[in-house]
């Protein structure tokens, strides 16, 4: 089987439709298990008390917001290099989910910051670069939606995605490169996690839930984008007619 067969919107459309529900189910299962661990099984933190439980939402959301932007940049590079339409559709399908996770990360961070640091917001390098990521997401969505010609919108969005990806390593390493109020990473590739096992397990399962949710939502969204953009083709016409009849 040649996987490049699925680089055509027409063949990818039914594949995405078959995969999305499974990822949705996986996301729901992981979310249930993870939330149980996070709010019932995990112990109270010795220093912060119960407020630390915000990290179970905050950390997976922050990871996802950075990762989705990297994936957007990847598809943009493929799209600009090979001129494949589906790559641009994927980039645009990913953006709202990335923006949502970025929003969640910023707000949960603020709600955690007030009781622990004593301030909702400070302009340290980590917080400021994450806010910039939020603006990059909004900028991408705004720009691609405001350009009339879809091919030009694709390319303009791809350029924002590629230029903005420089910000992602800055967010990630900001706590190492400069002294910040935000603490360093509790979980990283280079050292053993500095968390109790149940806490870590809950956080990782919720990170998987975020992954599966993103996959499910993005695949569903890319199906809508495919139909909208391919509406001049016969197969999309008949698919749209079928959907219309089912309503």
């Amino acid at each position, binding site marked *: 089987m040649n996987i490049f067969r699925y680089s055509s919107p027409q063949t990818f459309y039914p594949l995405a439709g078959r995969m999305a529900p499974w990822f949705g189910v996986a996301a729901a299962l992981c979310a249930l298990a993870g939330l149980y661990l996070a709010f019932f099984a995990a*112990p*109270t*933190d*010795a*220093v*912060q008390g119960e407020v*630390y439980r915000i*990290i179970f939402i905050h950390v997976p959301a922050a990871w996802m917001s950075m990762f989705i932007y990297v994936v957007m940049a990847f598809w943009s*590079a493929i799209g*600009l*290099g*090979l*001129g494949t339409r589906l790559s641009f559709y994927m980039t645009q399908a990913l953006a709202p989910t990335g923006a949502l996770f970025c929003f969640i990360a910023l707000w949960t961070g603020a709600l955690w910051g007030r*009781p*622990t*640091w*004593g*301030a909702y917001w*400070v*302009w*340290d*390098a980590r917080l400021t670069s994450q806010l910039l990521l939020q603006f990059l997401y909004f900028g991408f969505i705004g720009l691609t939606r405001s350009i009339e010609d879809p091919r030009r919108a694709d390319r303009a969005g791809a350029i924002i995605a*590629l*230029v903005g*990806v*420089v910000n992602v390593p*800055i967010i990630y390493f900001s706590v190492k*490169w*400069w*002294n*910040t*109020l935000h*603490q*360093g*990473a*509790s979980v990283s590739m280079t050292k053993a996690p*500095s*968390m*109790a096992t149940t*806490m870590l397990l809950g956080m990782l399962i919720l990170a998987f839930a975020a992954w599966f949710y993103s996959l499910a939502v993005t695949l569903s969204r890319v199906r809508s984008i495919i139909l909208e953009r391919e509406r001049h083709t016969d197969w999309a016409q008949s698919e749209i007619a079928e959907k219309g009849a089912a309503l």
Partner: protein
Amino acid sequence: MKTRHKRFILIGVVLALLAGAAALVLNTFSDNIVFFQTPSEVATGKVPQGRTFRLGGMVVAGSLVREADGLSSRFAITDTAKIVPVRFTGALPDLFKEGKGAVAQGKLGPDGVFVATEVLAKHDENYMPPEAKDAVDRAHATAKTLK
């Protein structure tokens, strides 16, 4: 060379240039990007007197004194090399503790005392249940007595 190879190389080169430009800019402004100055930087005179800045480090164990008025407090911040005494009037955050990280915003007085207008607690990346923390504290205490 195929056109699409050229395009990928172009994308790669432009990204590398952008990353390089970002690195240069961030490197140049690194003094302004840091959230706080350390006591050692204050000692070397890197921070001008009379200007507002943030001072960060560990709260020296045993240095916290709460004044009789119930609002003012005195403590000292260290980076293990130098110590700067701090005076603050206001409510300290709940997680403010001796031996833990803190960031104070204010001005350095001519007497070398840092007069803070705002104090934030800096949390570390360790998360553990109270029982584990007790065990760690006991282990540290034992290690100290053995020395």
